[in-house]
């Protein structure tokens, strides 16, 4: 074994270069850090406001295409427009609009974080709304923080809570429900219905 090591040592020393640690050229991928979503609901409209924080902890800049599907079906009718904003700079981000969602480029300098705001609204044909959470698990780790707010007209009875049942807080004549999770691994999708 020792002899083998010595044999390996000679060519290894020939190949060894005394130099600083080299950086990899691999393509970094954003880390999904937090989401803070607000669903403002009425009998005929869903207004969605979402803050999504990403980080790029790698020593390289990151340019990643993010596809953000938006539900459209017979209950949640197709959205007409979605705003995507870089909340660090306040600038709008160009988003390609597809039939089932939007796509945009997330550009991040090395070792940086960025919060993206996404806003859209959809007409509702029934008193219920859905939002898929399970795909958050595709980021290969627990989401460090997630906050979900639901705002409904005052006195609205919720038939199905998206998370644990709770009493509303009265804010500006509306009922506000709020849930927050740390190291969140969603087990099911967001679904709410009311009457």
């Amino acid at each position, binding site marked *: 074994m020792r002899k083998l090591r010595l044999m390996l040592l000679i060519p290894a020393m020939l190949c060894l270069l005394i130099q600083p*640690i080299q950086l990899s050229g*691999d393509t*970094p*991928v954003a880390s999904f850090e*937090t989401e803070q979503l607000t669903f403002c609901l009425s009998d005929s409209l869903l207004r969605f406001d979402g803050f999504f924080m990403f980080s790029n902890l*790698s020593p390289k800049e990151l340019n990643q295409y993010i596809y953000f599907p938006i539900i459209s079906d017979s209950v949640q009718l197709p959205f007409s427009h979605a705003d995507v904003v870089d909340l660090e700079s306040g600038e709008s981000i160009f988003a390609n609009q597809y039939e089932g969602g939007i796509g945009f480029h997330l550009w991040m300098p090395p070792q940086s*974080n960025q919060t993206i705001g996404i806003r859209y609204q959809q007409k509702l044909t029934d008193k219920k709304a859905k939002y898929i959470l399970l795909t958050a698990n595709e980021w290969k780790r627990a989401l460090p923080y997630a906050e979900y707010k639901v705002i409904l007209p005052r006195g609205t009875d919720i038939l199905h809570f998206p998370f644990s049942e709770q009493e509303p807080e009265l804010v500006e004549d509306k009922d506000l429900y709020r849930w927050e999770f740390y190291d969140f691994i969603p087990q099911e999708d967001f679904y709410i219905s009311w009457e």
Partner: protein
Amino acid sequence: MTRYLLIVIFMIATALVANPLPSILVQQIYFDANEDLIMQLGYLCASFAGGTLTVSDGTNTASYTILEDDFQNYPVDVNLSTLMPDLNVCCESGYLSFDNMNPYDLEEVRWGYNDDCDVTPLTGSQSIYQYYDSRHNGWESYTVKTWAKSDSPDNVQDYCCNTHATVHVYIENNQSEPVEGAKIFYMDDLNLCCLTDAAGNATIQLGARNTLLSVKAPDASGDALCWDRFFLEPNQVLELSATIDYSSVDDSVIPEAGAALMLKPSVLRPGNTMLVEYGKALESKADLNLYDIKGRFIRTVNYREALSYDTQGLSSGIYFLRLMQGTRILATKKFILLR
């Protein structure tokens, strides 16, 4: 059964998903029994349905339209040899680029370039596949997408690394004595990967991929010794050794294991306070240093026992608290300030 469950899950996701997805489109490449080059798309093709994937070898290009139902039938095998009759990649030199509809989202694999997306020629039934790989930058782990080799296309699924190699490293000093505590780094990990033991040995499990290893003396003095890039084959066991100019071991630079820095909560709003507690009693005081996401020092406070840490004056973003005694790092923990 698992396959059907996955298909169902992703069918639902196609229709309903409402969270961002990271983008890898090409899952793997391999030669089939007819020596045709096959490009395989995984479930993330759902994100690109209806889009066009342009494949280029530098001379020839061809386009493939990603169908709506590709996602439901994943993995989707596309015969590149048929799609590109003049395809000019022999897996000894050249490259293939995969350009989806998004101009900055290029995926590329190379042969013979000795860089990070270089893979050595495929042999037998091997394939090359793309997956998410975790790295560290000294503060926190992050993710990159990268290429590796598999023994068989059938062993690859869902963009996960499923092939590994083992590297045994032996480090000795100029007097041919084994060096304990030498630091072995790999790729762009600026964080400690592992230390050599008292016999000068370290064993590292790595993906079967293009690899760069380097070693530093226990006190981190001097330049790093680096092995040139080499490609690890699936299940390979590789023995490496090196000599570093180092004679004494300084225990003070070896990180202390077994104690963690706890932050409660670790995600909070600017101006709020959090509880900071080190999981081990300290005999002397330590410094609790605050750094921003770029690793820039912001401020320090003394730490002796659990304390309430004020985030006043900090803006939204990602920060790190590092507990240190002199130059000795006890623990580092990330926290997030919300908007």
